[in-house]
């Protein structure tokens, strides 16, 4: 199922700023292990879904996955071979804005080696640098 908001106040948004580091969503809150972003960027909804599928298939019905990001932001694009002007393009896809430090996914109910391997597979699906983190005292 595609990740996208069920209802938005406005159809189109401006690109916005991606300055600074994550000041919220930057620590493990639900699981024991997590995947933290080291770069800033946009993650499309299909990239997030690809990561989720990679993790859940690797875990083989063991453990639980928490997706900590959501693609709230619509991105517009112009149709091919059209001239400039005539207004903003139509919404094409949805993205989550990622800052350095954002925790993308969390995993619980599995050991560290399994969680680390699952995060490695998920990290390969996205174009931003990430690292594996663990909750203080997790074993």
């Amino acid at each position, binding site marked *: 199922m595609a990740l996208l908001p069920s209802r938005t106040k406005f159809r189109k948004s401006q690109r916005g700023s991606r300055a600074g580091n994550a000041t919220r969503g930057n620590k493990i809150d639900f699981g024991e292990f997590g995947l933290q972003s*080291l770069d800033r960027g946009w993650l499309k909804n299909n990239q997030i879904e690809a990561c989720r599928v990679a993790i859940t298939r690797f875990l083989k019905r*063991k453990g639980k996955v928490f997706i900590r990001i959501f693609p709230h932001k619509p991105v517009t694009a112009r*149709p091919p071979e059209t001239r400039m002007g005539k207004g903003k393009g*139509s919404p*094409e896809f949805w993205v989550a804005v990622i800052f*350095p*430090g954002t925790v993308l996914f969390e995993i619980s109910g599995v050991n560290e080696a399994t969680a680390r391997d699952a995060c490695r597979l998920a990290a390969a699906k996205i174009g931003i640098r990430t690292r594996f983190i663990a909750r*203080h*005292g997790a074993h």
Partner: protein
Amino acid sequence: MATILDLSVSKRETSGKRAMGRLRRAGSIPAIVYGRTHASTTLQVDGKTFNRIVEHSASDNILVTLRIEGEAKEQLALVQEMQHDHLKGGILHIDFHAISADEEIHAEVPVDLVGTPAGIKQGGVLEYIHHTLEVRCLPKNLPDKLPVDVSHLNLNDSVHVRDIPLPEGVKTRMDGDVVIAMVAEPKVEAEPEPAAAAAAATPAAGAAPAAGAAAPAAGAAAPAAAAPAAAKKK
């Protein structure tokens, strides 16, 4: 029980972003002590010493006896909050809550699930609902963690707050019915069949606003391009 460690700290006169940056680069951590038994005072702590204390502590509830430079009296304190740099991993600032040894304190103690539940062999997944338990006790009774045996849990069984054996002198304000952990059935994700997936994709492509909008635009461009060509012929 949490051990009470000695920590020598010195008073800090400076404040502000740039001064704190210089302080951290010099190997110290800015801190503050406050509470009913001590007036608010800004401090600086040696980074290496404090990091060693944190590494060897079982939980975030750290009790220290502060020896503040220039003050004759020692002060018992609980580390109330630690601000971390979530990218570089260092400690940015420490809040010490000055407490009295004979007054009860409030703290969040981590729950440690011990053993492998029987329900895991039946395909279940052990899920934490709450990682910590809110407790109230005297500082000397503050536990590092609360171990709970979960090996008897079957599928769909849970551990409640009332099931957690609390050490003597420790009380919790959480309701006894609150679930701490459970062995849940895993959510099975139905794989979409290829035929069903193809059927679902076809109407979705037709309904896509971008695809629908592009077709008339392309159609409109063709007559527009043909018009100048016709004019040239004339």
